[in-house]
């Protein structure tokens, strides 16, 4: 293909390489424009503004450079401390969801009659939007009349001992956790179903011949074989959970007090309600750092397990 002779303009334009370069960029152009304008520009803009006292009402042209003040302000910010605590507690939902999803998916593949129908029941919350989820669950969790407390009461729990759910600062976060589990388990079951269907049947047949029971097969074959899926879902779950804000904005507005405040919700409020926009940018980079650290830890532990 390549010759030492210098190519004429016509030869270059009609060559395959030129055609590939031109059409390649034309093909990715719409997406590249979106990526450049929204993502790349956004990153630079937000990173710059994180070091200013920008207020969106006054405009960015009058924002002052404040150095790392926004980041030092985070130390001792009681709101932020509450957010971090809540975000870390919310992460506990992920392993529970994954474990339940694993069990359900493993029996769903060949031990359940009407598996497509059953799977659809678990998946339905995933295609529902968060406004419907929040408004329905808020009614279900109603502290004096809601069906959930009425049900608990029917078991003989005294009126004054009933959990206050979303209106109690002790119970609001657990209530949110229950709803998150309910919302996300369907997607995890779906992904596990795919992974489990790909496990070679011979592994189970061999185990059966060795006399391994169902539970042993689950712990010694299924769980190790679907580890890559668990890892992927864990990472996706962590990222999704740490940046969640609109769901709590609807269901509790972060309350009562700061009981269900998340870092994401705090960023939203600083951005558009209290107009500490420079601080909001700094907070969102702080959140990015947390996501990276938590993901890196998970990654690290994963590779240590593999090395053993």
């Amino acid at each position, binding site marked *: 293909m390549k010759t030492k002779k210098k190519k004429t303009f016509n030869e270059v334009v009609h060559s395959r390489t030129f055609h590939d370069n031109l059409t390649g960029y034309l093909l*990715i152009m719409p997406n590249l424009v979106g*990526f450049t304008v929204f993502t790349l520009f956004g990153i630079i803009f937000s990173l710059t503004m994180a070091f200013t006292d920008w207020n969106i009402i006054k405009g960015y042209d009058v924002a002052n450079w404040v150095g790392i003040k926004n980041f030092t302000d985070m130390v001792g910010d009681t709101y932020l401390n509450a957010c971090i605590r809540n975000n870390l507690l919310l992460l506990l939902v992920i392993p529970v969801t994954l474990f339940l999803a694993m069990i359900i998916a493993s029996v769903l593949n060949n031990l359940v009659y009407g598996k497509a129908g059953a799977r659809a029941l678990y998946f339905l919350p995933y295609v529902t939007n968060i406004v419907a989820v929040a408004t329905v669950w808020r009614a279900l969790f109603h502290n004096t009349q809601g069906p959930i407390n009425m049900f608990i009461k029917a078991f003989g729990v005294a009126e004054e001992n009933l959990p206050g759910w979303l209106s109690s600062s002790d119970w609001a976060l657990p209530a949110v956790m229950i709803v998150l589990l309910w919302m996300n388990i369907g997607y995890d079951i779906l992904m596990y179903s795919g992974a489990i269907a790909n496990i070679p049947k011979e592994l189970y047949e061999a185990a059966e011949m060795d006399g391994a029971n169902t539970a042993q097969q689950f712990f010694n074959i299924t769980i190790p074989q679907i580890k890559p899926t668990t890892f992927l879902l864990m990472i996706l779950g962590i990222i999704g959970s740490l940046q969640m804000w609109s769901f709590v904005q609807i269901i509790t507005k972060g309350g009562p007090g700061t009981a269900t405040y998340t870092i994401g919700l705090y960023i939203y409020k600083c951005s558009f309600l209290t107009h500490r926009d420079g601080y909001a940018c700094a907070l969102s980079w702080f959140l990015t750092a947390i996501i990276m650290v938590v993901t890196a830890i998970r990654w690290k532990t994963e590779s240590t397990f593999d090395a053993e």
Partner: protein
Amino acid sequence: MTGSHKKNMIITKSIISVIVWFFGIIMVFPFLWMLSTSFKGMNSVFTFPIEWIPRNPTLKGYKALFDGTVPYVTYFLNSVKVALIAAAGTFFSCTMAGFGYAKVRFKGRDGLFVLKLATTMLPGTVLILPTYMIYSRFGLINTHAALWLGNFLGGTFGVFLMRQAFISLPESMIESAKIDGAGNFNIYWNIAMPNVKSSIATLLFMYFLWTWNDYEKPLLYLWDKAKYTLPMAVKAFSDTQYQNYPAIMASNVLMLLPVMIAFVTCQNFFVESLIGSSVKG
């Protein structure tokens, strides 16, 4: 397999089926409660034991949506419009970019793709304020374009999904067309696209669903109530109708209905392609 073993198997399978279906039905309790409440009068919302089939069914909840106090039909049409435009844009931007990244060898391709991959870890909250600034610069605040433009230009998930689909097409298929002198756009449209139809359907379904369900963008970029899409409208409605649960649930039912119908009718197809995308990815 012996007869008694088979019999044992049937018993085990039956027991597990009952358990899995039992919890499955508990999973859909909130939906059943929503549906039955939407047909109740205000007084029977919280009767216990729950009236799953209302003793005195009424359409009052639904009438509250159409009595002229809220422009429910407008909200519905806004949602349809925004979701359709976003899905239509996605159809071109994601398949084109997916094909470009998968099958065309252009300079800087792999670098760009890695850069794109690297930004997927970035939380969405980082981009909220910059996006707001860009929209306000271009006069897009309080327009529907602010709701569909991002997805119209192709979301990262869609580009990955389509790239994965195109990569699995045999190279020989592409090469023989090249030898015949076909250009890349020609190959993309006439040869590659017809062979990834199921991935395209997943792509369109997912982006329609996400745009239909989106609550964050209208919350951030719209202030004119007449321009709201359903999730934002239902939220605002539920804030004003504090205790009117039948009306709130009726508005939820109508918002979820199109999605539920679409999901139930193409459930198998949708589930299989979603599983497929993750296993490959």
